[in-house]
C-alpha cells in the first residue's frame, strides 16, 4: 500500500514538472507561429538591421529597439555591478552577523517593490534632476539605466553572496595562514573561486533588465531613434510590444510577435549561458 502511494506521488510530481516544460514549448510555438510569417516577408536581415518602424506604412524594422535594449541593459549593468559586488563582498566576508541580518533582507526587499513604483520615482525625481543638471528632455538612457540598475541589484547581490559563501572555509584559512590580509584573501582567493557563480548572477540580472517592461516604458521615452548620447530617449524591445499590442491588428500585430521572438531568443541565450557557467562551478 505504501509503495503504491509512493508511486502515485512520484507520478503526480512528474506530470507537474513536465507541464512547466509543455507551457514553455507552447508559448514558444505560439509566438513563432504568429511572428514568423512577417519576419520571412520583410526578410530577417531587414527586420533586424533596418531602422524604419512605421507600422501604418507597413515598415517593420526593429534595429532601433535592439539598440535601445542593449544600451539600457549595458547602462544598468554598469550602474549595479560595482554596487552589488561591493555589497555582496561586504556581507559575505566582512560584516558581523548582526549587520548582515539587517542588510540582507533590506536588499531583498528592493526586489519586492513593484516596477510601477520604480517608474514613477524615475518620472517624478530623476527627470527634473537630469533635465536641470545635464540637459535633454528627461526620459533617457541614463534615467532608465539608473532605475534598472537599482532593480537588478538584489538579483546580482543575493546570488553573489551565495556563491561567495559556498567557497570552502579552508581556502580562507590557508590564505590567512600564509600571512595574507583579509582583503588580499578576498581578492586573490575567494573572488576567483566564486567567479563563475558571480558571473551567473550577473547574467540573470541582465536577463531581468532586458525583460523589464513597465518601468522602462515610463522612463525611457520610447522614441524610435538610434541614440547619439546617454541623454537621448530610446525604445526597448519589451516597450515596443507592450506599447502597441493593444492597438495592433494584422501585420502590425505579427510584427510585434516577431519582436517577441527576438526577445525570447535573447533571453534564452542569456539563461542558457548562466546555467552553463553555474554548472561549470559545480563540476569544479
Amino acid at each position: 500500500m505504501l509503495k503504491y502511494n509512493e508511486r502515485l506521488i512520484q507520478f503526480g510530481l512528474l506530470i507537474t514538472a513536465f507541464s512547466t516544460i509543455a507551457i514553455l514549448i507552447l508559448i514558444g510555438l505560439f509566438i513563432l507561429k504568429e511572428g514568423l510569417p512577417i519576419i520571412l516577408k520583410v526578410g530577417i536581415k531587414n527586420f533586424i538591421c533596418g531602422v524604419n518602424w512605421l507600422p501604418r506604412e507597413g515598415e517593420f524594422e526593429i534595429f532601433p529597439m535592439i539598440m535601445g535594449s542593449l544600451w539600457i541593459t549595458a547602462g544598468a549593468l554598469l550602474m549595479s555591478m560595482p554596487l552589488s559586488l561591493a555589497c555582496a563582498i561586504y556581507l559575505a566576508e566582512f560584516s558581523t552577523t548582526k549587520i548582515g541580518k539587517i542588510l540582507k533582507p533590506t536588499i531583498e526587499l528592493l526586489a519586492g517593490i513593484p516596477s510601477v513604483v520604480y517608474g514613477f520615482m524615475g518620472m517624478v525625481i530623476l527627470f527634473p534632476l537630469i533635465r536641470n543638471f545635464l540637459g535633454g528632455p528627461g526620459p533617457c538612457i541614463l534615467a532608465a539605466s539608473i532605475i534598472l540598475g537599482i532593480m537588478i541589484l538584489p538579483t546580482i547581490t543575493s546570488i553573489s553572496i551565495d556563491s561567495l559563501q559556498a567557497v570552502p572555509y579552508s581556502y580562507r584559512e590557508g590564505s590567512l595562514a600564509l600571512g595574507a590580509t583579509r582583503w588580499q584573501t578576498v581578492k586573490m582567493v575567494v573572488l576567483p573561486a566564486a567567479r563563475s557563480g558571480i558571473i551567473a548572477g550577473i547574467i540573470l540580472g541582465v536577463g531581468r533588465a532586458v525583460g523589464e517592461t513597465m518601468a522602462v516604458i515610463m522612463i525611457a521615452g520610447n522614441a524610435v531613434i538610434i541614440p547619439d548620447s546617454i541623454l537621448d530617449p530610446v525604445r526597448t524591445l519589451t516597450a515596443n510590444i507592450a506599447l502597441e499590442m493593444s492597438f495592433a491588428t494584422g501585420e502590425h500585430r505579427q510584427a510585434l510577435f516577431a519582436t517577441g521572438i527576438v526577445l525570447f531568443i535573447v533571453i534564452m541565450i542569456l539563461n542558457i549561458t548562466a546555467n552553463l557557467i553555474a554548472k561549470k562551478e559545480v563540476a569544479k
Partner: protein
Amino acid sequence: MYRFILTFTLIPYMMIGCARTKVETINIVGSTAFQPFAEKLAEEYMAMNKDVQINVQGGGSAVGIQSAQSGVAQIGMADMVVLPKEAGGLNSVVVAKDGIVLIVHPDNKIDGLSTQQIQQIFSGKLKNWNQVGGENRPITIISREEGSGTRVSFEELLLKDVKVSPEALIQDSTGAVRVMVGNDINSIGYISYGFVTKQVKTIKIDGVVPTLENIREGKYKIIRPVFLLTKGVPVGKVKEFIEFILSPQAQQLISKYGLIAIR
C-alpha cells in the same frame, strides 16, 4: 502545511461562489479616453437598476472593436474620427463627442499656435520655442503610441499628411502625457479635453480657445466622436443602457464631466 495550501487553493472557488448572483452582466471594453466616463455612467445606471452588472474595461479603441466583433464584450467603445475597416458590420451609435486639446507647461508663455506651426513642431521642423514667439528653450514633443485613438484622431484632424517626428517621446496613456507635460517646461502634448487639470495649460489653436462653449458651437474643430459598438442592433439590457446614455439626464452628466453631449 497541507491545510495551509489547501485553504489557499480553495479561496478562488469561494470567490466564484460570491460572484454568482442572479444579475445580467454587460461588458463594455475599449477606448481609455472614454473609460472613466463610462464607469461613472455605469455606476449611475446600476444604482437605478439592481439587476444589471456592468463591467467597464479599457484596452484601447482597437480592443473595443475586436471585443465587440468577437462577442467578448456586448458593447465596444471607440473614439476615432473614422472607424477602421475592422469595425465593418458593427452597429455604431455616437454617444458623445470629445475635444482634443494641445497642452503645455503652465509656466510656458505661449498662448496659442497656428495649425501650420503645430504641424511644423510635431514633424520636428521647429525645435525651439523662440521660433514660435516663446523663450529660448528646446521643444520636447510628447505623443501617444502608434494606433491610439487619440493619436489617430489628432493626426487626422490637425496634422493631416504630416508625420510625427520619430524623436517624439511616446507615452502610453492620457494620464502619463499629462504628468510628463506638467513636469517639463519644454514640452508639448495632446490629450482629451475631459482630462485637462491645473497641472497643464491648454493653448489656442488658430486663435480659438478650447472651451466647452467653443467646442459645442463648432468653433473649435479638433473634436472626435465616441462610438458605442454592438454586434447587430442592441436588444434587452444592452439597448436599455445605451438608451440611458442617450437620455437627457446622462447627457447632462457627460457634459459635466467635460465631454460634449450630443443632444
